[in-house]
């Protein structure tokens, strides 16, 4: 048995108008300072005003939000007593909103205790709306929460099925102001979600089609939106692709590229999408000798190749590297500007962190410690995996 969790999803141009009709008295908007500056928070507030809600804004969520930030947000929630919490932004504000919501409802818990094995009993005080302003994270529809433990220099993968939002508002107009680099990083994040959701050992009939659709959309529309950021159709299709990929991997799981990407991000502070997207082709090539077929199927579905088996899987990895290069994203760690010396010095910690990330559980080929270290080194040099 398994579950498929999803919020009600309002999508397409004008979706933000759905906020006009929500019932309640107080809303806490969890967001970041950039979105305040861009006027997007005011836009959301005006819809909440229309709905007759009193609004407070917690706008100090940083990239890779820390446990401390979440505690501060929960404190504001306890003082304000909202009946809606609105996560507005990219993955960081939405993840922070989920965690703040849990701590508001369950002050007896600490963030590290938010795990999938317990019943949280949420929705006694508030409900959650997620509003993505980037096209990649999928956090608007997933129950996962990633927080940073700054002292321990690690990312904490947390979450519980109850964390899934009640409503996700996927309005492409909110993504229009994304800068080019963010568009590329988040687009690769969506692609990684879709490929790993489809290929991981927890894949299932309810998520397979979603992942395939998302892969097709990313291959078609990410180059278009990178070539012309004002291409409205491409923006909208990428915004949808991210949510579809979120539903796909959120109801199966991510895999090895995420465990390696989380490790790299925690130590070298590389943006999430860039990190996981960079590792994706290497992990495909590593897994392919033992479990190539699902990658080959994705290669066929996205018209990268008609080949089967390992050849098909490698063609998918090649297509992903070509896409990354086309949109100006790094295809090796060296291209990120990390020195070989610094990287080598952290290699043991990278391996250790990747092995302690739950996403590694679902890889089609289970690496040994030596193999994972070697994979990190191949990714540094940009070498096609041959072991």
């Amino acid at each position, binding site marked *: *048995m*398994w*579950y498929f969790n999803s919020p009600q999803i309002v999508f397409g141009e004008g979706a933000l108008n759905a906020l006009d009709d929500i019932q309640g008295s107080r809303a806490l908007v969890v967001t970041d300072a950039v979105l305040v500056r861009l006027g997007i928070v005011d836009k959301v507030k005006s819809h909440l005003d229309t709905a007759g809600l009193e609004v407070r804004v917690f706008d100090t969520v940083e990239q890779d939000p820390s446990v401390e930030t979440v505690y501060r947000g929960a404190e504001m929630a306890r003082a304000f007593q909202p009946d809606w919490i609105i996560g507005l932004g990219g993955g960081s504000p939405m993840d922070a909103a989920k965690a703040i919501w849990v701590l508001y409802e369950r002050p007896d818990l600490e963030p*590290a*205790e938010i*795990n*999938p*094995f*317990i019943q949280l009993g949420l929705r006694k005080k508030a409900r959650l709306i997620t509003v993505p302003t980037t096209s990649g994270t999928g956090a608007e529809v997933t129950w996962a929460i990633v927080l940073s433990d700054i002292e321990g220099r690690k990312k904490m*993968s*947390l979450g519980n*099925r109850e964390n899934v939002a009640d409503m996700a508002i996927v309005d492409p107009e909110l993504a229009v102001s994304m800068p080019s680099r963010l568009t590329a990083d988040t687009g690769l994040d969506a692609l990684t979600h879709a490929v790993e959701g489809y290929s991981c*050992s*927890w894949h299932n009939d309810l998520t397979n089609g979603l992942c395939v659709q998302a892969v097709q959309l990313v291959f078609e529309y990410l180059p278009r939106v990178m070539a012309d950021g004002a291409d409205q159709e491409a923006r909208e299709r990428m915004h949808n692709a991210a949510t579809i990929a979120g539903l796909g991997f959120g109801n199966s799981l991510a895999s090895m590229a995420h465990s390696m990407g989380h490790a790299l991000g925690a130590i070298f502070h590389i943006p999430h999408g860039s990190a996981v997207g960079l590792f994706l082709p290497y992990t495909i090539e590593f897994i392919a000798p033992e479990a190539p077929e699902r990658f080959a199927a994705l290669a066929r579905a996205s018209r990268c190749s008609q080949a089967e088996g390992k050849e098909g899987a490698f063609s998918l990895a090649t297509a992903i590297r070509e896409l990354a290069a086309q949109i100006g994203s790094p295809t090796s760690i060296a291209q990120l500007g990390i020195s070989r010396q610094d990287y080598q010095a952290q290699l043991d910690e990278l391996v250790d962190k990747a*092995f*302690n*990330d*739950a996403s*590694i*559980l679902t890889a089609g080929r*289970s690496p*040994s*410690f030596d193999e994972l270290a070697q994979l990190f080194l191949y990714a540094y040099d940009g070498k096609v995996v041959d072991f």
Partner: protein
Amino acid sequence: MAIKFPSDEWIKELSSRLNASEAYEKSAKNWEGDFMFVSEPDALYPETVYLFLGLYHGKSPEAMLVSSLEEKPAGYVIRAPFGTWRKVVEGKIDPIQGMMTRQLKLSGNMMMVMRYPKAAKEIMNCVSTIETDFGD
């Protein structure tokens, strides 16, 4: 020769295989916490069985069938009916998914469990290598 499950012999065999596993030793090098696997009665197996597995810093110092939780207190207790354990041992239920869907009920410090996914996987890898007799 297949080893009967659940039994003292079976849990000792798992302990022995963990002690021989370099991958488990590395992945659980800082782990501290014993497990009790409780097989609850169902239509396939009518008795409650308690299997204690000691785990400490990448090794399994002891393992045994006991008569109750109190006989050998463990930090972590996982309960499931016999039929569910059988599916776990046969690889038909992923134990992490089993715990997430509450088919397997885990009690103990879950924050710690979340930090050792690779060790959990290595335990299951060892389980999968044991030729098991379910009494069919």
